[in-house]
């Protein structure tokens, strides 16, 4: 029997979901939808009778203080409307095979309470006014109520008597007759099989099997495609590239190795015995020294393509995935904090401007933020730092970067797997989720992606991952396993393939625990179901390991054995389904050779359209300095992100020292987070980021330099030691098969090398996501392609000896002196002044590689000596924005005079709004000014004025008043844009 328990809020409670649907319907112009009552249902398949279901509802499923419920028995036959109302009922159910976490928990809880069920499923219900038009209901269903990638909508009472589960699987070994194919057939196979391989790759595979005198099995082909995918092997950037620009002509054998890795090698060489890097660019995360007991790991990843299709699930599993990276680094690291950076199209984009097949950017933003929130918060990992960038070119390709920082004992940083060790899958079960995620993320999206790639969407379960992390770290400390890695893109295929690359492995696919029946051996092998880790467990430790996992309710299963055959052998119920040479798998891929060109002033046509002037800020003219400041404060990139930050737990684990929001009302924008990861030590981590795609439109070299400078100066601003800052690179670019697109990337990588060496900040890990383009056919039938702006995220991980020396950016005390540190130059190119005026021109900010490190060192000396009460970095909007933020965050006025900067011969406007790098606005206690000036001697530093008791920001130039505005007005402009409900 199938029972439905439908739960609705009591009348005195707000029906928030219903109200949300009504307001979304109004926004979409669906005038016939006026009333919506939302509810939720549990569908319970069981032999139990109605009395038992009623009891379960009352005792377990319902909160009787705030909820009503109804129990009804469902049947397959269409009958009279069971709920008897005149309205229209829409039910939203997960598609079969999609993970339903609440249903799983509920089924277990029912079992614990004595009610045995065959299956449980959840469902959302919407009762809508009966005269709503069918066409509008259909639109509501697809645009608001359900995401077609994972859910389906059933109109009217449910007519079903059982919950659909997977059907059985009939084993059939499949070979692919690749040997006889011509080039066209090879490419058709690559496309239809979602292998995403190029022709030379397909030809190489073909040649290999001709030599083997047999055809590959389907699972062999999948394994090769996945191992060679851009996502897993970074074949473009680690490949051969011929790069040319105005000054250089370089033939790279391995571009990444010769730029970014090379910087780290050089820095380590210079450090000699003082080298503090431990493991870089080889494990799942970069590792550096922290203290005598612990090293610290950092990794950032992107999950862009899945987030475009299903923002909640994509971002949710994006964070879940990156947490597993440090957990799978060395012998496992304990997560201590998360970071997140998002790039969206403007949330006020009119629906009429949306390309077909694209979710509205506000829907994307809400979904992504909720996804990150629910994973990080549930895992008990504070999300402490991030940024959001808005640009119309992210319309089809939002970017979702997630990072994780973790601590690992100094003696647990190396894996030591031996042939003979069991291959053990720990954590979540394998299902049909995320099939082809690795190859999917290596291709361009188009308007059909949502339907074609629905299977690539994964659903996360943070609680399972938390349980896995707890038990894995306990097992690590008991020495129960010899190696560990995460199951990420490519699933078991990638995890086992990598772990066994140097030895060999045999996997028994039928042993893997499944969420439901019906998976083929290939699906088991490549599924990207979440929350799984693969461990190498020595046979002698298996019993203890298994018992430990069982004691915490975590499933651990032997699925194979590491061997010394240098082959990857897969079996299904004893039948061999794959036998691959590890060498061919990991070394057989033909080298990718690419052309890359960068010419000043020449941009690919698609990237020519820089962000349009913002539509959302009305107000004073941008011709006056005060007007321009208000507009910049209210621009999406600069405005307060409190709406996001307050949804994240940034304090769990009790290590929070400098929070993302600071100041007298806890709402000013912190430059970086400071976290004290060990409760018994005062040593701290500083976490920050830098990203500025708008400079990349002018010159990717200086964009990259600016991103590194921004990330590092943010760290410095809170008190980090410049001699201990490690950085990560995350490149998100368009289609690098175009020489100019790859050219801009290489140019950025060259900059990364130069700046990292100059700053002494080693890159310790990185990742790239290419092909971030979206194609569609417009109303005139013309194919359009939207390419994202070249987006390099630099994440910085700083350290400080004593967190008690940290400083925050809010003005502290009237009477204190205010200084500008660093040189302002005529660098308005890509600035926010241009952005709010809709103008262009000027050069992108550069970095003085000689002087910047000296400024950082002197600033650190001043901060650690207690000479500085507040410090804020200058970035978007320049001096004017930094001054405004410092003032309103502290609830104190500033009175500044630019006269001391007269020697620069720059216009007032340039002094106020130029976004030159390596600058800080600093508050110094009046009695310490001499010490401060001495510490900064020889560097550009100007005393501009003081903190006042007033409630105004005043900036003048001699006798001329430039800005005179009430703090409340500035703050309101800054807080208003993203003050969402």
């Amino acid at each position, binding site marked *: 029997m199938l029972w439905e328990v439908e739960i609705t809020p009591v009348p005195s*409670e707000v029906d*928030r979901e219903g109200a949300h649907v009504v307001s979304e319907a109004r926004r979409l112009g669906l005038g016939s939808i006026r009333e919506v009552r939302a509810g939720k249902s549990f569908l319970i398949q069981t032999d139990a009778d109605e009395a038992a279901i009623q009891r379960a509802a*009352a*005792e*377990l499923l319902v*909160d*009787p*203080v*705030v909820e009503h419920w109804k129990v009804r028995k469902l049947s397959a036959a269409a009958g009279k409307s069971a709920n008897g109302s005149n309205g229209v009922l829409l039910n939203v159910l997960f598609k079969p095979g999609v993970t339903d*976490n*609440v249903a*799983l*928990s*509920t089924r277990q809880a029912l079992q614990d309470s004595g009610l045995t069920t065959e299956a449980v499923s959840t469902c959302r219900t919407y009762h809508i006014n009966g005269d709503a038009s069918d066409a509008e209901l259909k639109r509501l269903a697809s645009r608001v109520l359900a995401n077609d990638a994972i859910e389906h909508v059933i109109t009217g009472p449910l007519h079903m008597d059982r919950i659909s589960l997977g059907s059985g699987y009939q084993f059939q070994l499949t070979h692919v007759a690749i040997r006889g194919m011509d080039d066209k057939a090879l490419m058709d196979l690559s496309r239809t099989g979602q292998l995403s391989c190029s022709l030379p790759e397909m030809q190489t595979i073909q040649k290999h099997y001709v030599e083997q005198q047999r055809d590959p099995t389907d699972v062999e082909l999948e394994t090769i495609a996945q191992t060679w995918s851009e996502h897993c092997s970074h074949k473009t950037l680690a490949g051969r590239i011929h790069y040319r620009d105005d000054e250089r002509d370089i033939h790279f054998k391995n571009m990444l190795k010769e730029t970014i890795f090379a910087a780290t090698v050089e820095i380590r060489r210079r450090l000699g015995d003082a080298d503090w890097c431990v493991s870089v660019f080889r494990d799942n995360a970069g590792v550096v020294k922290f203290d005598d007991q612990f090293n610290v790991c950092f990794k950032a990843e992107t999950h862009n393509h899945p987030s475009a299709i299903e923002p909640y699930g994509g971002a949710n599993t994006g964070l879940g995935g990156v947490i597993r990276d440090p957990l799978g680094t060395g012998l496992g690291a304990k997560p201590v904090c998360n970071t997140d950076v998002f790039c969206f199209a403007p949330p006020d984009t009119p629906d009429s401007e949306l390309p077909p097949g694209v979710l509205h950017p506000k829907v994307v933003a809400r979904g992504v933020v909720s996804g990150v929130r629910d994973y990080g*918060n*549930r*895992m*008990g990992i504070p999300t402490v730092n991030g940024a959001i960038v808005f640009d119309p070119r992210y319309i089809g390709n939002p970017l979702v970067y997630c990072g994780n920082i973790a601590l690992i004992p100094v003696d647990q940083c190396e894996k030591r797997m031996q042939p003979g060790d069991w291959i053990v899958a720990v954590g979540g079960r394998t299902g049909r989720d995320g099939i082809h995620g690795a190859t999917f993320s290596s291709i361009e999206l188009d308007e059909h992606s949502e339907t074609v790639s629905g299977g690539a969407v994964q659903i996360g*379960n*943070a609680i399972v991952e*938390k*349980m896995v992390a707890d038990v894995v770290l306990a097992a690590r400390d008991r020495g129960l396993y010899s190696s560990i890695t995460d199951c990420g893109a490519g699933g078991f295929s990638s995890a086992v393939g990598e772990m066994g690359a140097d030895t060999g492995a045999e996997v028994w696919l039928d042993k893997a625990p499944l969420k439901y029946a019906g998976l083929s051996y290939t699906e088991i092998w490549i599924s990207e179901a979440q929350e799984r880790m693969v461990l190498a467990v020595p046979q002698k430790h298996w019993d203890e390991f298994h018992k430990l996992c069982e004691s*915490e*309710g975590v499933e651990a299963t032997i699925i194979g054995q590491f061997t010394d055959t240098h082959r990857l052998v897969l079996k299904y119920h004893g039948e061999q389904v794959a036998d691959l040479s590890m060498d061919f798998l990991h070394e057989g891929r033909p080298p990718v050779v690419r052309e890359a060109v960068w010419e000043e002033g020449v941009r690919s046509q698609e990237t020519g359209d820089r962000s349009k002037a913002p539509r959302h800020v009305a107000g004073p003219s941008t011709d006056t300095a005060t007007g321009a400041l208000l507009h910049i404060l209210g621009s999406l990139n600069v405005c307060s992100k409190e709406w996001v930050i*307050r*949804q*994240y*737990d940034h*304090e*769990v*684990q*009790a290590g*929070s*020292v*400098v*929070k993302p*929001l*600071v*100041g*007298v*009302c*806890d709402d000013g924008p912190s430059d970086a987070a400071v976290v004290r990861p060990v*409760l018994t030590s005062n040593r701290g981590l500083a976490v920050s980021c830098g990203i500025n795609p708008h400079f990349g439109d002018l010159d990717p070299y200086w964009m990259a330099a600016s991103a590194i400078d921004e990330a590092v100066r943010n760290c410095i601003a809170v008190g980090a030691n410049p001699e201990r800052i490690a950085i990560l690179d995350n490149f998100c670019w368009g289609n690098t098969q175009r020489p100019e697109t790859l050219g801009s990337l290489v140019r950025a990588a060259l900059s990364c090398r130069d700046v990292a060496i100059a700053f002494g900040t080693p890159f310790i890990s990185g990742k790239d996501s290419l092909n971030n383009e979206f194609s569609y056919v417009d109303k005139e039938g013309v194919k359009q392609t939207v390419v994202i702006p070249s987006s390099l995220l630099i994440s910085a991980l700083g350290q400080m000896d004593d*967190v*008690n020396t*940290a*400083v*925050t950016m809010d003005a*502290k005390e009237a009477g204190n002196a205010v200084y500008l540190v660093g040189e302002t130059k005529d660098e308005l190119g890509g600035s926010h002044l241009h952005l709010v005026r809709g103008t262009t021109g000027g050069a992108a900010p550069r970095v003085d590689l000689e002087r910047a490190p000296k400024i950082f060192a002197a600033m650190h000396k001043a901060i650690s000596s207690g000479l500085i009460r507040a410090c804020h970095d200058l970035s978007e909007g320049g001096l004017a924005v930094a001054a405004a933020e410092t003032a309103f965050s*502290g*609830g104190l006025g500033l009175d500044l005079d630019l006269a001391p900067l007269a020697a620069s011969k720059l216009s007032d406007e340039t002094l106020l709004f130029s976004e030159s790098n390596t600058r800080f606005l600093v508050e110094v206690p009046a009695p310490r000014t001499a010490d401060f000036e001495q510490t900064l001697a020889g560097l550009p530093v100007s005393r501009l004025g003081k903190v006042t008791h007033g409630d105004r920001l005043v900036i003048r130039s001699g006798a001329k008043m430039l800005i005179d505005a*009430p703090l*409340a*007005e500035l*703050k*309101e402009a800054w*807080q*208003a844009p993203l*003050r969402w*409900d």
Partner: protein
Amino acid sequence: MPAPSVCVLRAPGTNCDVETAYAFEACGGTAERVHLYRLLEDPARLKSYQILCIPGGFSYGDDIGSGVIFSRHLRGRLGEALGEFLQRDTLILGICNGFQVLLKAGILPGGHWPPPAAVDFPATLTWNLNGKYTALWTKLKVAGGKNVFLKGIDEIELPVAHGEGRIVPRDPSVIEQWKAQGQVVLQYTWREASCRAMAGAVVAAAGGGATFGGLSDDADASDGDPDALLPFPHNPNGSTANIAGLSDPTGRVLGLMPHPERFLFATQHPQWTRRKLSGEGSGMQIFRNAVEYFG
């Protein structure tokens, strides 16, 4: 007097257990992080503890409702052991998810065993008025005066971080009864005055059109009555009568939504750099009170 032994009870999804156990230890207690499964295997194990603490987190993902599944284990197999525990001179602390568990198990508000049937519960903790998980610092006023954990504390600043922290009683008489028995021991109150002034100025600057999270001009009129609903962010979740924490009638059980374990060190305060705070955080006193009760 030996250090009291503390059971910090964790379930799948609990995530504040480490720092909570640390807090008890730092105050001289002997804290053990115990998995719920160990107690389910051997309920009698509860006999060896004097303090039971259910820390924050998302037990069982808060699937079905916050704290529900964890609470059903307490009501089920652990019922007898809990009844026995409550009979002894013991303390129980539920923080955030732990408070939700205590309330949904029926241990609060009554503090006695057996608890009422779920359909007869006098109150619940449900979704914040703003409909979403919210993390921010609050200022709290201690009332009632006889809860062991709050001894010597009049006011305290602590952070909240939850989605379901709004107390909703079945009817208004429930609150009256709690007040009469001194059970409403922790209430959200106005945050710093300077901030309120700022917020008022913002309202004025915006021409009165926009408000800072619903702060209205006449809000100050409610200063006198601690039960008059404060606006966000002062009352972060819309909890009835600004209730942030509840005691049982004896004062030995405390459930609270704010996190005292997130203010063990001065540097956890969001404004420590402004106020030049150093050393211990005010939240430590709540744990110290518990340990000293057995001193």
